[in-house]
C-alpha cells in the first residue's frame, strides 16, 4: 500500500524498579494507556508485535503471555529482538506489516523486567554481551566496549572527559523534569566524576541503568489513522542497518556504521536532512554513545560531538535538542521498552504535549535506537500534518 503509517496512540509506564508487577502486568499498563490515548479498543488490534530481549525474563516466549493477558488471542503475535534496539525492530516490523497491507492496526509493545534477576545471573549475562568466541573469553563487558570507543574518539578528535560528563548532566537535567524517568535528580560534574570506575575512562555516571518498564505505540494505516482521538504522527522515514558484532572486524570505532547507514535511509525516505530535525531521542546507553549519535546523525560534523554538547547545542534552545526526556541515562533502560519509549517521546513532542520539556516548533522529530555496541541501528523520522 502506498499510504502512510501513523502513530495513533502511545502509552508508557514509569521506568525503574518495579517490584510490584510481572512483565505482562507492565505491558498491560502501557497498552491500556495507549488504547485510551487512541480511542480505539482491543478489538481493533489486528496484531501485536512485542519488542523484548528474552534472556532477561524467566517467562519464556513473552508474546504468548502478553497476548493472553491483554485478551488479544487469536490475533497474530510474535517477538522481535535486536538487542537494545528490539523495541524499534518491533515498530519497523509492524510498520512493514501495515505497508504490506497485511494488517491495518497494530500494537507494538516494548517491555522488559530486568530487576528480577539475581546478581549472579546478571553477571553471567554481562559476561556474554560481546562476541563470545573471541572476545567474551577475555572478560569484555558492555561498558568496556563503549569505553574503548570513547578512548579512541578522545585520541582521534580530542574529545574530553568533561564533555562526556556534560552529556550525563544534560540528561539528568531533563530526567528531573520527566515524571516517568527512573532518576529524577539533577547531577553535578563533581558527583559524576566522584562515582566509581567501571571501565576507564567511564565512571558509573557514564552508564545507563537496568530498569523495568513498558511502552506501547499503536500504528495504523493512513485512512484508519485519521479521525481518532489525536492527530496521527507519521512514520515518514524508516532506516535500519547493521554493523559487525565484534570489534575485531569493525571498520571504525569512532562512529557506528549502522547508525550512519540507517540515518541516510531515514532522511532519504522522509525527504529531510539532519538540519530539519527539531527534536531527537538518541541511544545514550553510555555518554560517548550520545556524542557518536550527534555525529552519525549529522547534527554536527565528524569529530565535533564533544564540542556540540560542550556548547549546549543539544539542550532545548540549541540547534538540535536531544534526549529532553532524560535519555536512557536518566529514564532508565528497560531494554526492549527503550526504542518504543523513544517513539512515544517524539510523538508527545510533535503533538505539543511535552509540558515543561516541550521543544518549540517541534514538527520533525527523530529516534535513534542502537542494538548492542552498534550491531543494529534503527532510525525513524517522524512528522506531523501542518
Amino acid at each position, binding site marked *: 500500500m502506498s499510504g502512510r503509517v501513523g502513530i495513533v496512540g502511545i502509552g508508557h509506564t514509569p521506568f525503574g524498579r518495579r517490584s510490584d508487577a510481572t512483565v505482562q502486568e507492565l505491558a498491560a499498563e502501557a497498552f491500556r494507556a495507549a488504547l485510551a490515548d487512541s480511542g480505539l479498543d482491543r478489538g481493533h488490534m489486528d496484531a501485536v508485535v512485542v519488542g523484548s530481549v528474552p534472556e532477561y525474563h524467566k517467562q519464556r516466549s513473552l508474546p504468548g503471555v502478553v497476548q493472553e493477558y491483554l485478551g488479544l488471542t487469536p490475533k497474530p503475535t510474535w517477538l522481535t529482538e535486536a538487542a537494545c534496539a528490539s523495541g524499534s525492530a518491533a515498530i519497523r516490523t509492524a510498520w512493514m506489516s501495515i505497508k504490506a497491507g497485511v494488517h491495518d492496526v497494530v500494537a507494538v509493545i516494548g517491555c522488559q523486567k530486568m530487576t528480577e534477576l539475581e546478581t549472579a545471573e546478571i553477571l553471567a549475562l554481562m559476561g556474554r554481551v560481546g562476541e563470545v568466541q573471541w572476545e*567474551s573469553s577475555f*572478560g569484555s563487558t558492555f561498558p568496556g566496549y563503549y569505553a574503548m570507543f570513547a578512548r579512541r574518539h578522545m585520541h582521534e578528535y580530542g574529545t574530553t572527559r568533561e564533555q562526556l560528563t556534560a552529556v550525563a548532566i544534560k540528561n539528568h537535567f531533563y530526567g528531573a523534569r520527566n515524571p516517568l524517568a527512573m532518576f529524577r535528580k539533577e547531577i553535578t560534574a563533581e558527583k559524576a566524576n566522584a562515582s566509581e570506575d567501571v571501565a576507564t575512562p567511564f565512571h558509573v555516571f557514564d552508564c545507563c541503568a537496568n530498569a523495568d518498564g513498558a511502552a506501547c505505540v499503536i500504528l495504523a494505516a493512513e485512512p484508519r489513522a485519521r479521525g481518532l482521538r489525536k492527530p496521527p504522527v507519521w512514520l515518514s522515514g524508516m532506516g535500519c542497518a547493521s554493523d559487525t558484532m565484534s570489534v575485531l572486524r569493525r571498520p571504525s570505532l569512532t562512529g557506528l556504521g549502522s547508525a550512519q547507514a540507517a540515518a541516510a535511509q531515514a532522511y532519504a525516505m522522509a525527504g529531510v536532512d539532519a538540519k530539519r530535525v527539531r527534536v531527537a531521542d538518541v541511544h545514550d546507553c553510555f555518554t560517548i554513545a550520545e556524542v557518536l549519535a550527534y555525529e552519525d546523525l549529522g547534527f554536527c560534523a565528524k569529530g565535533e560531538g564533544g564540542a556540540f554538547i560542550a556548547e549546549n547545542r543539544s539542550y532545548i534552545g540549541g540547534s538540535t535538542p536531544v534526549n529532553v526526556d532524560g535519555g536512557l541515562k536518566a529514564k532508565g533502560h528497560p531494554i526492549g521498552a527503550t526504542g518504543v519509549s523513544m517513539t512515544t517521546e517524539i510523538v508527545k513532542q510533535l503533538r505539543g504535549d511535552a509540558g515543561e520539556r516541550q521543544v518549540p516548533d517541534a514538527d520533525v522529530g527523530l529516534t535513534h535506537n542502537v542494538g548492542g555496541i552498534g550491531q543494529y541501528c534503527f532510525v525513524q523520522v517522524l512528522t506531523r500534518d501542518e
Partner: protein
Amino acid sequence: MFKWFGRVNHAPHTKVAEFAQHLREGRLMASRCEACGHVSFPPRADCEACLHGAFTFVPVSGRGTLHTWTRITAAPRGFEDVAPYTLGLVDLEEGGRALAWIGASVPESSLAIGMPLQVTPRLHEDVEDIRVDYTLESPKGATA
C-alpha cells in the same frame, strides 16, 4: 579442544577448534581460504572474502599496534576475582585484530594508542584443566 581457549569459554564447538591446539604449542594461527587465499585473524572456517568453506591454518606474526584499551573494574562472572584487568585491542600487521589482556611486560602508565605490541600465546599451567589464550606484550619482551 576449543574449550581450552580463554578464562571463560562459551563456544566450545567450532570448526576452527584446532586453533587452541596450535596456541598450546606456542603458535598463533590465522585461517587461509583454500579458494581465494584470503587470510583471517581470528580464524574463520568460512572465508570472509568469498564464503568458501574450506581453509587451512597459517601462522601469523602477532605483531601489531594498540588501537584502543580500557581498564575493567566492574567484571562479569568468572572475572570477579581477577579484576581490575586491562583489555587492549590491537591492529595486526597482517590484517585483523586481537582483543586480549595487556600483559605484565607493559606497564599501564606506558599505554598509548599506536604503540607496538606483540600477541603472545600463553599456556596457563596454574589450573587443573588445560587453558590457553594470548596476551599483548611489549615486543622486546614477547619471548621472555
